[in-house]
């Protein structure tokens, strides 16, 4: 036993972990060292409960230039260009202080992309909150959106896409995941491995203060109970400095002044320095007295783990330090030599001439403990007896009410708060296509990007749900005309040590891996956020997939109908079910498990069809089912439709059921045969169901006729979100 059990427990370390530290070090750790271990061995930094499971992800492939393990994954996109991208959670800080929590979430992921030497070109996000009838959820939602907008708008990186969902399970554990995508020349890629003993360590950017002390261990790695006490652990963002930092780092990289670059995120300097040292198998000697501070009287431990924002750590050859400082001064940024690279393998920090910490860097990183999680299978889901669900008497009214639900309705009031356009490269804006599309300058090609989740499905059938998230993202890209390249992911889960959460985590990873392998898409980066759980509620398993693809810039396809008389084609089998659907509005039942070969073929079929250049609109069928996809295409295109579909078991299931890997395409009548052939060549079912026409939505489902004026559909869908929380 360590002598002071109270301290390590307060820091979030178990008694076993404290004993292990003493054993590894061969002595009692200093106060600063114990603080450093507590941060680096936290779930947030070490992935100690998820690391073994994450190995299941396929992470290699032809185009992969950098897989998991660096600040971001990097994939080749041709012409000497590569795309760097990653998604990361900032859930716990956002639950405590939504504006700054969400803003600094954006700031952190942007610096991860900068650390690869890449220029950030797009931001996306994935958000979950409790129902908007809850005042607290409304507050978290509106302030988090404002925080994302504030930071992204001010740094000049367009926020081009994302998703927002509402469910009571997020009432006390909201999710704020931010994704950044950057472009880098192959020969301009940076790594975050320190090398070259004698090289200088330079801290660039903001001064170091007491903000965010212990953020990774206190906030991000435990259940939240008493929010107010944790407020000082939330960092405060300064996007103006971030922008200068971005310009400066790109300038430094272009001038070849950097050996390595790393951002300071969770666990601050401790994490940045120990990871750089461990990756490069070198040591670092840091003089804490040299670090510019924002407040006086900070202890060695506080300086080492401060999460003050907008800071980067660079490794620089001594002869280039003067040139580096000159560039930083031009950008009005502090740049301070704080130490040197050594050959000892140890992270040494001194203050006032005294050694405050001396730890082999690998102890903090690679040697962090790894725990298995209990794999307790949840009961198999039981399909809903359709007869137990009342059938709506007025299907048109039901359809309209579904379009107005917060999870379905237009998110325009959200994305209009984001600068979607800065950089003049956004070819498809939010709401106009299955994925956002951002130009790769000078190549004639563009990146298509989407974020997707399917938490209700994952709650009931985590393996099927994990696969379905990947397939939905792939369909969204294929509908836009883009070939999927790779994914990043953020696994948002409850406490893995309780109940079936650990098993669900393993199952979701297995399902995602099956889908990725079948599609030939590697997982190149990711993040895990556990303990999204309070005394009253645990979140549904919420894996968020961020998928990146490639498309010719003149060949993108939107969701909106284009012309009166165009033919509407339903792609995929109508095997939809109301289980776990948005219409049901609850995680109940047994959602159809994706058939891996069938779903894979559907993605290929959609790609082949859109690749013909004849498809005029394409919309993935997912939340809200066929009825919602049809209405959204009509609303986006200002044109109605007249269609006839199979009634299946019941009209409401045919209209609003989900699952089965489906999409709606339109084309000119004369091109219909070619489009059908392209789809059927993949063994995928394609059915002509009607035409684009007029200003009404008319559906014949089996024997039932349903009709909705396009203006009424638009009115419900456009105002649903804002109206749902009007008093």
């Amino acid at each position, binding site marked *: 036993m360590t002598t002071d059990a109270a301290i390590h427990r307060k820091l979030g370390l178990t008694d076993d972990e404290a004993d292990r530290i003493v054993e590894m070090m061969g002595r009692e750790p200093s106060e600063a060292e114990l603080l450093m271990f507590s941060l680096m061995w936290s779930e947030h930094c070490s992935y100690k409960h998820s690391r073994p499971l994450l190995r299941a992800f396929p992470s290699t492939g032809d185009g992969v230039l950098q897989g998991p393990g660096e600040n971001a994954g990097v994939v080749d996109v041709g012409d000497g260009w590569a795309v760097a991208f990653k998604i990361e959670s900032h859930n716990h800080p956002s639950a405590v202080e939504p504006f700054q929590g969400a803003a600094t979430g954006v700031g952190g992921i942007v610096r991860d992309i900068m650390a690869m030497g890449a220029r950030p070109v797009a931001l996306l996000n994935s958000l979950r909150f409790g129902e908007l009838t809850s005042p607290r959820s409304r507050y978290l939602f509106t302030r988090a959106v*404002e925080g994302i*907008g*504030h930071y992204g*708008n*001010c*740094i*000049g990186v367009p926020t081009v896409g994302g998703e927002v969902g509402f469910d009571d399970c997020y009432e006390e554990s909201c999710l704020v995941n931010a994704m950044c995508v950057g472009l880098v020349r192959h020969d301009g890629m940076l790594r975050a491995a320190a090398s070259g003993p004698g090289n200088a360590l330079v801290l660039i950017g903001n001064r170091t203060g007491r903000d965010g002390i212990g953020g990774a261990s206190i906030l991000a790695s435990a259940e939240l109970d008493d929010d107010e006490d944790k407020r000082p652990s939330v960092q405060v963002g*300064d*996007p*103006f*400095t971030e*922008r*200068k930092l971005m310009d400066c780092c790109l300038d430094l990289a272009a001038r070849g002044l950097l050996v390595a670059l790393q951002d300071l995120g969770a666990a601050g300097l401790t994490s940045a320095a120990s990871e750089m040292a461990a990756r490069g198998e070198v040591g670092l000697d840091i003089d804490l007295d040299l670090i510019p501070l924002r407040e006086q009287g900070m202890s060695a431990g506080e300086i080492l783990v401060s999460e003050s924002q907008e800071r980067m750590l660079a490794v620089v050859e001594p002869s280039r330090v003067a040139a580096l400082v000159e560039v930083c001064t031009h*950008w*009005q940024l502090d740049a301070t030599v704080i130490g040197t690279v050594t050959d000892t393998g140890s992270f040494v920090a001194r203050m006032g001439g005294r050694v405050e910490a001396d730890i082999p860097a690998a102890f903090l990183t690679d040697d962090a403990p790894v725990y298995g999680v209990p794999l307790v299978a949840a009961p198999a889901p039981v399909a809903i007896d359709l007869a137990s669900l009342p059938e709506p008497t007025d299907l048109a009214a039901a359809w309209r009410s579904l379009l107005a639900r917060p999870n379905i309705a237009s998110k325009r009031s959200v*994305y*209009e*708060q*984001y*600068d*979607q*356009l*800065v*950089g*003049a*490269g*956004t*070819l498809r*804006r939010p709401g106009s296509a299955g994925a956002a599309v951002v*130009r790769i300058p000078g190549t004639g090609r563009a990146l298509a990007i989407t974020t997707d989740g399917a938490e209700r499905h994952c709650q009931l059938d985590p393996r099927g749900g994990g696969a379905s998230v990947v397939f939905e993202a792939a369909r969204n890209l294929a509908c836009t005309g883009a070939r999927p390249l790779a994914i990043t992911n953020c696994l948002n889960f409850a406490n893995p040590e309780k109940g079936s959460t650990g098993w669900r985590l393993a199952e979701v990873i297995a399902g995602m891996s099956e889908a990725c392998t079948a599609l030939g898409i590697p997982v190149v980066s990711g993040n895990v956020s556990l303990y999204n759980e309070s005394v009253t509620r645990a979140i549904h398993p919420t894996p968020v997939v961020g998928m990146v693809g490639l498309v010719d*810039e*003149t060949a993108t396809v939107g969701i909106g109908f284009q012309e009166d008389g165009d033919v509407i084609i339903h792609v995929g089998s109508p095997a939809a079910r109301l289980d776990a659907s948005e219409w049901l509005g609850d995680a109940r039942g047994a959602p159809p498990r994706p058939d891996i070969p069938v779903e894979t073929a559907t993605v290929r079929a959609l790609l082949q069809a859109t690749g013909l250049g004849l498809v005029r609109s394409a919309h993935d069928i997912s939340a809200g089912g066929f009825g919602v996809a049809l209405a959204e295409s009509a609303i986006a295109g200002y044109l109605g439709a007249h269609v006839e579909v199979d009634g299946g078991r019941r009209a409401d299931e045919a209209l609003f059921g989900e699952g089965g890997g489906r999409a709606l395409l339109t084309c000119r009548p004369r091109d219909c045969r070619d489009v059908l052939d392209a789809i059927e060549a993949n063994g995928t079912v394609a059915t002509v169901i009607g035409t684009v026409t007029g200003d009404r939505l008319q559906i014949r489902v089996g024997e039932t006729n349903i009709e909705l004026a396009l203006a009424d559909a638009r009115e419900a869908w456009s105002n649903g979100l804002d109206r749902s929380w009007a008093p």
Partner: protein
Amino acid sequence: MTGPDQIAVIRFPGTLDHESALRAAEETGARAYFAWHADTDLPPGTTAVVLPGGFSYGDHLRPGAIASRAPIMNAIRRLAGDGGPVLGICNGFQVLCEAGLLPGVLRPNRTLRFICRQAELEVGDAETRWTGGRSRGEGISIPIKHHDGAWFGDPTDGRVVLRYLGENPNGSVDQVAGIANRDGNVMGLMPHPEEACDVLLGSADGVALFQGLLAA
């Protein structure tokens, strides 16, 4: 004016739209380059100036307030005084108002929210160099994206070149989206023409504003 058109695109710390503004300026056939806020002179031969959008100095104090006192502003004032064309876009518009080169001020949007959307505009004054020969009332489609875009002032102090058509997104006086000085050579607008110079981006109507930078 003789000699080639040479357009300086001004960069302040926190300027964001300089690269797209530079590309749009180059596409007019002119030579274009960046000029730095801390310099006291424009590069020799400069015939026109663009102040692009962004958050100069992080919008500290008031949008444009600090940038309007930067060393480069005196050189811009001299060029404008000699009749040279000056175009301020979004934050650049705010800077020009703060510098007194354009009438009025930009106040926070009526909704107190940042707003990014395609805006439909109409030509209010067809006699300036900025609307590519379009007649009064003709439409122009250019996106807006701002938090402080509600122009407030007396429209008769200048020439209202562009007005919002239909719903006024920010609550500006007289639907003002863009206004020029009385001489017509200094122009400021909240919409972003540099993001409307390519039909693939949704509109190419912004080209006219950049052509206004060229000698007649």
